């Protein structure tokens, strides 16, 4: 088991995180939502820690705990006074292999998750559109499916499904420990060796090979028209390499490109579409660099101004990108974007939780500690030419456009 310690001595607080290098991408075909379902079930107890016992212990000292599921990782974390670090380790080591699941508890939790799905998707047209756009972008690769799973597949998930998935992935070999805060690296290492070292080895997790989509040459447009939409929206998605699969310099250029295009109110899309043309009220661009081992996502999203349709705004975005391919980027804007991105890494060091997340996600997505250490230098090294190459990845025929539209009352 890999162990990462990020010391921060300012307060006697420690953040303990166990990351498993699997997520919804590893849900078996027909069983989407299984990784997330198991994440919920991991709170249902073991023989040594019946449901609620650890939570009550943690609560009694003011600790916080939670968990989250991504496409390529699942993480469990606690924030506690530093003297409770070994308590957290003992608990996580126990539930790594000894989860006890009762049929009735599984059935109730499935209901909870269906309500969660309603909140994020079924009662939320923008959420439903987002799901449809992602699956259209990579129909074959399982990272196109929503993390929470499709409703009809969640309804069919069983205790046996959860346990099979659990035994396959919840092993010391597949886990990563990140401890941030007031802790000595050597002491953490010794504790981890004693506590996690006692969990029997399970052998390395089998190699995962996911179906790949062909390079896209066909633009796809998805439209969701619904009476409950009160504000239309445009969501454009392009699949681009993740930092773990990109050629050198490519991911850094995409990071800078997202900032230059739609990172703030000085960005190119904001200036052109919101300030000058007034055809949008909001616009942003984002490169989801931290979430995927395989193909990653690059989003451009906007709210059209009254009188403008999502389709109009979609075309305007293309026009801005076309102009940019001709004109290139201003040197002063590139320098400013670099200054801000590099500073954001320093600002992130103010929060042990942000840092622990940054390390955990990167290591689960196939990067190494060296990659994190040299990130700032690599951002500084991005050239104007590299930005233009990154821009070419946003060609219209490679992407999906999602239009959220209000249907008029009958």
């Amino acid at each position, binding site marked *: 088991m890999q162990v990462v310690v990020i010391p921060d001595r300012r307060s006697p607080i420690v953040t303990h995180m166990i990351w498993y290098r699997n997520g919804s991408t590893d849900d078996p075909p027909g069983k989407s939502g299984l990784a997330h379902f198991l994440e919920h079930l991991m709170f249902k107890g073991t023989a040594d820690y019946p449901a609620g*016992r650890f939570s009550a212990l943690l609560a009694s000292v003011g600790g916080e705990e939670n968990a989250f599921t991504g496409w390529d990782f699942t993480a469990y974390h606690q924030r506690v006074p530093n003297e409770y670090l070994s308590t957290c380790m003992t608990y996580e080591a126990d539930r790594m292999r000894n989860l006890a699941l009762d049929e009735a508890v599984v059935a109730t939790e499935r209901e909870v998750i269906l309500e969660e799905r309603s909140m994020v998707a079924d*009662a939320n047209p923008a959420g439903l559109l987002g799901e449809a756009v992602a699956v259209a972008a990579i129909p074959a690769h399982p990272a196109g499916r929503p993390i929470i799973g499709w409703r009809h597949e969640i309804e069919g998930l069983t205790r046996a499904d959860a346990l099979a998935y659990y035994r396959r992935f919840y092993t010391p070999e597949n886990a990563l420990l990140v401890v941030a805060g007031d802790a000595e690296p050597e002491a953490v290492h010794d504790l981890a060796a004693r506590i996690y070292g006692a969990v029997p080895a399970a052998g390395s997790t089998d190699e995962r090979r996911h179906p790949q989509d062909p390079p896209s040459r066909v633009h796809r447009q998805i439209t969701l028209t619904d009476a409950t939409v009160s504000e239309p929206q445009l969501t454009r998605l392009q699949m681009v390499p993740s930092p773990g699969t990109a050629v050198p310099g490519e991911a850094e250029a995409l990071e800078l490109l997202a900032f230059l295009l739609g990172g703030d109110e000085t960005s190119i899309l904001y200036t052109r579409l919101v300030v000058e043309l007034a055809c949008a009220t909001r616009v942003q661009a984002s490169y989801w660099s931290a979430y995927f081992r395989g193909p990653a996502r690059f989003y451009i999203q906007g709210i059209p101004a009254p009188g403008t349709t999502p389709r109009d705004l979609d075309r305007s975005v293309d026009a801005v990108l076309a102009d940019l391919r001709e004109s290139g980027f201003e040197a002063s804007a590139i320098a400013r974007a670099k200054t801000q991105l590099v500073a954001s890494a320093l600002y992130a060091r103010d929060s042990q939780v942000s840092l622990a997340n940054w390390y955990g996600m990167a290591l689960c997505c196939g990067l190494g500690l060296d990659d994190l250490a040299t990130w700032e230098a690599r951002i500084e090294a991005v050239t104007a030419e590299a930005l233009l190459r990154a821009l070419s990845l946003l060609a219209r025929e490679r992407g999906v456009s999602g239009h959220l539209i209000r249907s008029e009352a009958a």
Partner: protein
Amino acid sequence: MTIHVAPTPTALADRVHRLRSPGGIEAWLIEDHTLPILSMQFGFRGGPTLDAADRAGSARMLADLLTEGAGPMDAGAFRRALGDRAIRLSFSIWTDSLRGELKTLAREAAAAFDLLGLALRAPRLAPDDLVRVRSALESDARAGLSRPDPVASRSFAARGFPVHPYGRPVGGDLDSLPRISHGDLAALHERMLTRANLRVGVVGAIGPEALGIALDRAFAELPGGAMAATPLTGLQGLGERVVTRLGLPQSTIRFGRPGIPRQDPDFAAATVVNQCLGGDMSSRLFREVREKRGLCYAMRTGLHVAEGACTLVGMTATRNDRVGETLRVIEDELLRLSTDGLGQDEIDRAKGYLLGSSKLRLDSSSAIAALLLALQLDGCGLDWLDTHNRRIAAVTPEDGRRAAARLLGDGRLLIAIAGDPVGS
């Protein structure tokens, strides 16, 4: 098992330097050179409570305009000046205040405080920027018309506080936003952004003397002004259900009762009662509604302390055909707690959580600066946290029973539902 935790002092009072700049600006500072950055949180009392009755959203609009250009710089030039130095400046709207956060590398502090001073003293409020900011807020308001959370919150507030600023949407609505004029914003700016309304908390790599000089660059030239005060009120509409129909498969429910104010002798006990009722994942409502019955994903309650009113507010969301059952379980639990009070174990666990978490939350400069600001805006002294923690530690089952009976009374709630509930 129960672990008894004695309330150890937060040591906040020992670490905080209370300073007064040469120009007379007061601030609370924690000097910390671990990282070469500094984080300042500042606030102006009043916030959206100063909006004219038919112009809700004015303070929010002013907050958004404060980074849209100042003095000789238009919006683009001002933001580029911030960006060139990686200075982060943002403003937000709270119940009783307008707050700002300034984050800067220590070496850029002088420029950061100069730019902030310009933004506060001489925001441009230019016609183009007004149009743009207004249309963004109108867009949010339109989007909020069909989202269950904002719909339930708005109808809860409108019924609960019919003739008080708390009843109006802080971001404004499609009626109020078009009415807000340049004159309204200029008047609000002059009335709210004053030294009398200002409170400041700073954490980071700067000493008191240097900070004093920096504070003067940002704030000393603001007008003195008079301090804003929010009129007192209380939550109304108990026993009523307000349903807003949305064609969605799930109903979002907001429910509440009047709370107990901070200066009340039962405030600490009420905090413990809320913690046991719906404060966390071991609480009664979480257990009964989510864990046992699978009725919801989200379930929480909170004691909201504002200057004009305190409320106990809860939120959950459930399938339309289970709204009736969910509300029955909630109301039964409230009545049970009001009648029977809390057990010793439950009280001890809640006390342990409240005492421990008050320190665990302070894990970043921003979080600590935000606390320093909140204490000042709420009129609390530096020792308030320690005093409050001692009171929490002293809560007995008898205190809990009394506070539960006062807080939950006959169990009647104001309930706002957004969705398509069956049988409501």
